[in-house]
């Protein structure tokens, strides 16, 4: 018991939780923007991979780190536009189109990698983002090393949460996005183009998702590997439900998942050998399912989620 408290009381644990949570923060925020406008984006896993590849490759080819981040976001936006065209004006199945975008984006990322680096024996490394030192804040006892020793992308993710929450709840644009996901006819009645709102939301959301991938290759690590996304995108889809489509809860969910994962890595060493390692690997997912069961009963689905809008149709 005291060992568990020791883990929770260590600054390095919270720092790890935030690090693990960062790609999920971008992912869940991106998914939330898409779904709030009524489009389920199952292209997320592929967009993660493409973002991870594009950001890293841009830096490897000589761009600076922030240009790399921009390259990742643009790559995400392009795949988002493809998904939006398929699902919004064409009104195709969002499940099928999403999985299709995931397969396409993943394969294209691998293909591009191999074309650019046909004979690489190990992927070339880049100089990734390092932790930033914030004046005063980084020097705080406990909180300094726990919360303020992160790389710029983590702070970018936290800022984006604030920004998205503000836009969604405090601006006419946010109202239009939310209405497009709840009652698109009302948006139409306001004289706004539902398709344009949805396309815009999906493109923006996909750009944000891609940053989650970019974090993996430009901050958490310094090279791109095939399959390194490892299902993080799918976790974000579940986290969106957990968050009941609210940015605040989404942030909480991402950090909670990061904390579960950081916790199991440390707990393993306390009960060394007594429990099979697979149990620990399962733990973050198990706890997520439990959390989902508790909150999903009250989950507040956007009413028009996955329903294509056809002008004039009743």
């Amino acid at each position: 018991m005291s060992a568990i408290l020791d883990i929770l009381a260590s600054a390095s644990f919270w720092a790890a939780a935030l690090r693990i949570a960062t790609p999920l923060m971008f992912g869940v925020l991106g998914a939330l923007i898409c779904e709030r406008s009524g489009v389920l984006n199952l292209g997320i896993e592929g967009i993660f991979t493409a973002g991870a590849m594009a950001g890293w490759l841009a830096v490897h080819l000589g761009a600076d780190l922030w240009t790399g981040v921009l390259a990742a976001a643009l790559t995400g936006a392009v795949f988002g536009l493809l998904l939006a065209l398929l699902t919004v004006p064409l009104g195709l199945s969002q499940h099928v189109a999403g999985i299709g975008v995931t397969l396409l984006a993943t394969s294209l990322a691998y293909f591009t990698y191999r074309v650019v680096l046909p004979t690489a024996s190990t992927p070339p490394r880049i100089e990734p983002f390092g932790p930033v030192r914030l004046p005063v804040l980084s020097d705080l006892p406990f909180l300094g090393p726990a919360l303020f020793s992160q790389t710029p992308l983590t702070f970018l993710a936290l800022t984006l949460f604030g920004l998205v929450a503000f836009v969604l709840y405090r601006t006419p644009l946010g109202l239009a996005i939310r209405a497009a996901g709840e009652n698109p006819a009302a948006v139409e009645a306001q004289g706004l183009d539902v398709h344009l709102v949805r396309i815009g939301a999906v493109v923006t959301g996909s750009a944000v998702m891609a940053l989650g991938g970019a974090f993996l290759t430009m901050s958490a690590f310094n090279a791109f590997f095939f399959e390194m996304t490892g299902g993080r995108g799918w976790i974000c889809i579940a986290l969106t439900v957990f968050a009941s489509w609210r940015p605040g809860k989404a942030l909480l969910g991402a950090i909670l998942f990061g904390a579960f994962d950081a916790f199991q890595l440390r707990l393993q060493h306390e009960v060394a050998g007594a429990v099979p390692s697979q149990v620990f690997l399962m733990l973050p997912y198990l706890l997520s399912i439990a959390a989902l069961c508790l909150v999903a009963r009250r989950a507040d689905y956007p009413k028009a989620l996955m329903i294509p809008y056809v002008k004039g149709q009743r």
Partner: protein
Amino acid sequence: MSSKNLLHRRAVLQGTAAIGALSIFGGAFAQGAGRQIKVAAIYTVPVEQQWVSRIHKALNGARDRGEVSYKFSENVANNDYERVMRQYAEEGSDLVVGEIFGVERQARRVAAAYPKVAFLMGSSFGPSKPNLAVFDNFIQEPSYLTGMVAGKTTKSNLIGMVGGYAIPEVNRLMHAFMDGARSVNPNVKFLVTFINSWYDPPKAKEAAFAMIDKGADILYAERFGVSDAAKEKGVKVIGNVIDTSSQYPGTVLASALWHMEPTIERAVTAVKEGRFEAADYGQFSHMQYGGASLAVDEKLVPADVVRLVREKEKEITDGLFRVNVNDAEPKAG
């Protein structure tokens, strides 16, 4: 950089095409002693993967020496494996190399259907008559030696090990490493984490950070990412299968390296001479045959430890000492 690589690849392709044309026009001519055999390889992971990169390197070497023509398929899903095997066999490959850990039964069935083609496959099981030979990364000997280095060098007596999956190919090297460390330091303790992925460096890195937090001062780097965490936190690592010491200067104490060249050379020669048969090539990954070796950074490891390890190495190559092979999942403690 990139365009150069592309050019290089094109040059290789043209070279291969030219050789192909030559063999069409001078078929009888090419049948002489220096006949170039056609090798195809099928990998379930990209060629960057540590394990597969060793096979790829050996085959590229054979191609560069002009002994074989070499083509490969990477990232082949297990449920596609059978089809790709058949395709290469139908195309007239002389030797098909690969890894069939996930498709043992199917691969053996395919091999039996093409008795004229030689198959050399990484496998946890034995060979299948008449034409499927097996190999595996039996480099437990240098792993034992790196364990001795770690056991002698650790100050906290706590060593962290991060692995991909707990499969025999990983487990046996971890056990040999632990045995080696315990043989020189009875007080040494181990932390073990499997991340259940071959390719998740950020995850491997987090697992390594957790071990460093717990007090580990040497990490056994089975996956990419572990050495990065070690370098960041200023602890040391033991490398495995590939040599990464140039990427992490001052961090890698020692590495147990795998060399596929002896295995590939023997298989290619056997095919050339028409005497390839279903055999277990596993032993050619032993130190005695040059299939495994130990790399020690003598700037980081004290001279008396290096001497001790080199003595044990001699015992192994002389056949006086045998490292135990234990395929069970290693436990912490």
